[in-house]
């Protein structure tokens, strides 16, 4: 079966961050031609790089191409009773499949690898994402349910903008916690002035409003003025269930683009 090996090797060696790296000794698997297990088990030290659900190994740390790849779907990772200390094995469900026996340098290295590898599968990641998706939906619903609470003024001049763009995160703010255990910035039902905002992609009505986590253009009285912010952006009415991550990403991305432009202009004008 063909594989896009060049691209896979490129992915292994490019500078996207790895999930875990380190030296491990890998048991050499030999074909046994004799009836008796008359073999010396040997291990070879390799440099291992875990990226996502792919475990690469290199002959040397500086090698420019991976020697091999273990795709980590459908595997289990277990400590194993090899003669070696700090040994663990990657095994696959498939009957007759060989196991990869690996030996770490010490107890903590072994534990770290076992942990990282057992959570490396795509399936596991997908599970966690789905769970978080549900939790986010529920958090939105609870906030929508407290519509009646008075809107909190978001004027603390030191506050930086909350941008959910994962690539651009200012200081994390801790939202204030109300006594029901949920936090809120004050869930208004709409923008100041009570105007309803258009549903972004024109689909079903009554989406749960996201909490207004940023100052709208209208209430920019204090703190850093942001003249460039597109005023049409409604603060709290992105319908979460219709806004998949990529849509939210580009929606918030508009603001990022504007802010970045402002910042660059300010830099040019010699502001700190």
């Amino acid at each position, binding site marked *: 079966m063909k594989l896009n090996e060049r691209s896979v090797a*490129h992915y292994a060696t490019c500078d996207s961050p790895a999930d875990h790296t380190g030296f491990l000794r890998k048991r050499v698997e030999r074909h046994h031609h004799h009836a008796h297990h008359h073999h010396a088990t040997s291990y070879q030290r390799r440099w291992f790089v875990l990226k996502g*659900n792919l475990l690469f190994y290199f002959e040397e740390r500086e090698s420019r191409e991976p*020697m091999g790849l*273990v795709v980590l779907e459908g595997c289990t990772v277990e400590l194993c009773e090899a003669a070696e200390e700090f040994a663990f094995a990657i095994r696959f469900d498939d009957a007759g499949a060989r196991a990869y026996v690996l030996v770490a340098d010490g107890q903590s290295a072994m534990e770290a690898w076992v*942990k990282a590898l057992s959570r490396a599968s795509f399936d596991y990641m997908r599970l966690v994402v789905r769970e978080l998706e549900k939790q986010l939906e529920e958090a939105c619903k609870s906030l929508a349910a407290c519509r009646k609470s008075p809107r909190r003024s978001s004027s603390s001049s030191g506050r930086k903008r*909350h941008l959910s763009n994962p690539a651009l995160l200012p200081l994390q703010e801790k*939202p204030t916690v109300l006594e029901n255990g949920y936090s809120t910035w004050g869930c208004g039902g709409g923008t100041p002035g009570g105007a309803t905002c258009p549903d972004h992609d024109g689909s079903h009505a009554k989406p749960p409003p996201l909490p207004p986590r940023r100052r709208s253009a209208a209430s920019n009285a204090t703190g850093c003025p942001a003249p460039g912010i597109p005023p049409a952006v409604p603060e709290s009415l992105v319908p979460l269930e219709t806004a998949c991550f990529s849509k939210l990403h580009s929606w918030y991305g508009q603001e990022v683009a504007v802010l970045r432009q402002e910042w660059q202009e300010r830099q040019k004008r010699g502001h700190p």
Partner: protein
Amino acid sequence: MRYNERELLCLARQPAEKAAEILMRVPKKGSVLKKRLVKLVVNFLFYFRTDEAEPIGALLLEHCRITKEEENVFSISFIEEPERKYCFECASEEQCQEWVEALKRASYEFMRRTLIFYRNEIQKMTGKDPLEQFGISEEARFQLGTHKQ
């Protein structure tokens, strides 16, 4: 580069996110569109001759670009070789759009970013880190700002 082909073949037999018979052309000189069974499983796209059980090939969908080409057509290329395109001609524009959307979301990297995004949103809304219950809040792979595109 060695790889555990056996496990990949096993993966190719798993239930797919998406599967369809689509005309496909590989980026090789003189290659033409051929009908293939195309199957998306986790971050791999497998392609089979329509009457065979074992795939001809697999594409790892990391660091790739999915491009909508002309009508009914999309392509997959990889960032280090953007000119080499795997072309797919669908039966309809709708099918084409569905595949483009699905493939764009198919990478592990995309899922990771989604997870970090949700984690952050939940944390802001509830003050709690949702990954703590999984015991994985400290892992490097889920940290904000660790993984940039």
